[in-house]
């Protein structure tokens, strides 16, 4: 009797597990399908966005080749370099801004601390694009809207306000025990030395997280880049370039190249992201375990 019951429980559990796994597999296919589609399209031999069959009729590497050789209309290698340069500067400057702000807000006590945090929250409620036009005029007024200064302008736009995004690293710094700081103070360290020699070495996950998110920002944004670059194709970033390829006049000849470009941009970001995931979880979990 008892044996029979366990057996029926077992079959029920087996059925439930199978159903769950089938559902998960179906969902995973739905989620991975667009990615699979991009990769397939990037190897498609037929041009144009019109497809008549799911799998390409011919496979080719020409799309990738063309992306790097056909620089007459859309200069992908140059866009790639532009974005890379901007991203490197962003990574350094934003990381400094964010870490400095969050350390001050987490560890130091000063009069403007609370007001600053409240103002930062209120600023976050305004739509980010609202000030876009104003930013453009300000950049124009200080002479950064023409020629090679556009790169400087883009770096400024991506980094200048980054101090507001202090929450995650502040949360991390909050978890580092204060006793470590106090021990250092007793040994005669200044607050700056505590920041550079005690706090920062303990904060690798959050530093990595901040560097990666700052580095990725210029690859992902294209609204600000579009407004600031206007028609100056020499300074386009990758995202504007990809966006252009899907515009009416280019889509027929560039659609498969778009997919190739998308794959090329996605691979490094996906790798960074998978690495970052651990740091993200650790950054959330705090510095000291157990």
């Amino acid at each position, binding site marked *: 009797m008892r044996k029979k019951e366990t057996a029926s429980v077992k079959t029920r559990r087996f059925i439930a597990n199978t159903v769950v796994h089938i559902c998960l597999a179906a969902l995973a296919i739905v*989620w991975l399908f667009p990615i699979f589609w991009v990769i397939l399209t990037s190897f498609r031999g037929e041009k144009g966005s019109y497809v008549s069959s799911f799998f390409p009729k011919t496979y080719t590497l020409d799309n990738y080749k063309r992306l790097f050789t056909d620089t007459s209309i859309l200069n992908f290698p140059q866009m790639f370099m532009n974005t890379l340069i901007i991203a490197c500067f962003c990574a350094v400057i934003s990381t400094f801004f964010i870490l400095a702000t969050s350390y001050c807000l987490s560890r130091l006590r000063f009069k403007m601390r609370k007001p600053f945090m409240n103002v930062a929250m209120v600023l976050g409620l305004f739509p980010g694009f609202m000030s876009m036009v104003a930013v453009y005029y300000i950049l124009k007024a200080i002479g950064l809207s023409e020629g090679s200064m556009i790169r400087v302008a883009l770096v400024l736009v991506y980094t200048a306000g980054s101090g507001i995004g202090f929450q995650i690293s502040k949360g991390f710094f909050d978890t580092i025990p204060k006793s470590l700081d106090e021990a250092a103070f007793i040994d005669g360290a*200044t607050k700056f030395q505590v920041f550079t020699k005690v706090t920062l070495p303990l904060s690798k996950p959050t530093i990595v997280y901040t560097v990666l998110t700052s580095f990725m920002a210029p690859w*992902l944004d294209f609204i600000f880049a579009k407004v600031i670059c206007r028609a100056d194709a020499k300074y386009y970033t990758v995202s504007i370039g990809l966006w252009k390829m899907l515009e009416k006049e280019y889509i027929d000849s560039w659609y498969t190249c778009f997919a190739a470009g998308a794959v090329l941009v996605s691979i490094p970001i996906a790798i960074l992201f998978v690495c970052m995931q651990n740091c993200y979880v650790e950054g959330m979990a705090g510095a000291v375990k157990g």
Partner: protein
Amino acid sequence: MSKNAEKKGRKKRVNYFATPYTLSNALKEGGTATKISLLVMGAANIAHKQIVKGLLFLALEIAYFAYMIKIGFGCLAMLPSLGDKASEKVWNEAKGIYEYTAGDQSILILLYGIIAIAITVLFVLLWRASVTSGYKAQYLSERKMHVNNFIEDVKDLFNGNLHKMLMALPLTGILAFTVLPLIFMITMAFTNYSKVDDHLTLFDWVGLANFAKVLNFKDSIGQTFWSVLGWTIIWAVFATGLNYIFGMILGIVINRKGTRCKAFWRFCFVLSIAVPQFVSLLIMRTCLQPEGAVNVLLKNMGIINESLPFFTNATWARVTVIIINCWVGIPYTLLQVTGILQNIPAELYEAARVDGANAVVTFFKITLPYMLFVTTPYLITQFTGNVNNFNVIFLLSGGSPTPVGSTAGKTDLLVTWLYKLTIDQQYYNLGAVIGILTFVVLAIVALVTYRNTGSYKNEEGFM
């Protein structure tokens, strides 16, 4: 009372701030040098042997007045009128050609005026700092205490005043590229800066007329505003709610005991985050066009005869963007909730099982209340994020389908409408008004929710 005590306790630790060196004390008890420093900044510092500091204050004061006399006052004087000299065509006899005179450009007058005001505000703060610093020097030397020299002051920037050094640059960045543009944009809402009646170079203050226009039910812009606002709220509620619930269910299913290869399933879903959003969204947009891959393949398979109107029918478009937003958002929720789900006390579930509750009941009676309790702040951020969710709408549907003659499409949110109004249509003033109204909506939602969270917390349902 307790708040006061707490304040005192904090100040005691900070100690430099519960100082007698305030502006009012400086005015009441300041000596001659301090009084002089009200006019000549840094005088008191110089008198009390802080020569470099005093000279720095003085130099900044001279720089400010030089700026104001040379540029600043002119900018401020132009601010009320915003300029009225139009660019004109003048016949140049000598060269025998028409020349254009430089007219006023209201937008630059407005910008420079705001910058002048901002610099003046900063100067007032600096003036206050100089007076209190001078009084501090006087106070300390009167009591025969040590007055810091310049090198000690610089050294203190790395210790007691570390926040001043570390925050200086980030704060400048925020002020110059976040706060200043925001103020600039807000002032635009009170002007007639738009292509209507050709006010793109010369415009005037119009008070609250733009707000009246946008909020007016009878005006065409007003009607668009209310319908866009309605859709924005529907969108934000559905986008936030569906992502939250389905993300959580997915999290539960992956985390349940019987599921194998948990890491693998999580990886499948998280991979979709790793692809840049604009890539995946643009791909979906091209696939869902009337002649796009999805329709063509369905037609070839003989499932449908006519193209499905993904972005050409209003209802279809709205449902499509919400569903695709689920595709985008659920993995994020999955990442966020996984940790919290594991923290739900197992006893709660065991007790429920003993009482004979099935999975659905457990979800609604235990998991959901617990999660809501813990993640309300996250939900609020998500809601604000979705109201301002520019990327998904702009890249996916671009707001279409757009009724003829309207400035906003059926799937346009306030933010994408703002973008269209400013960048495409050049109604800068209306764009600014919509930005401000979006802020108002969000502020109300955030305030109401936070207040409810407070009362919710008092019940301490799960603590």
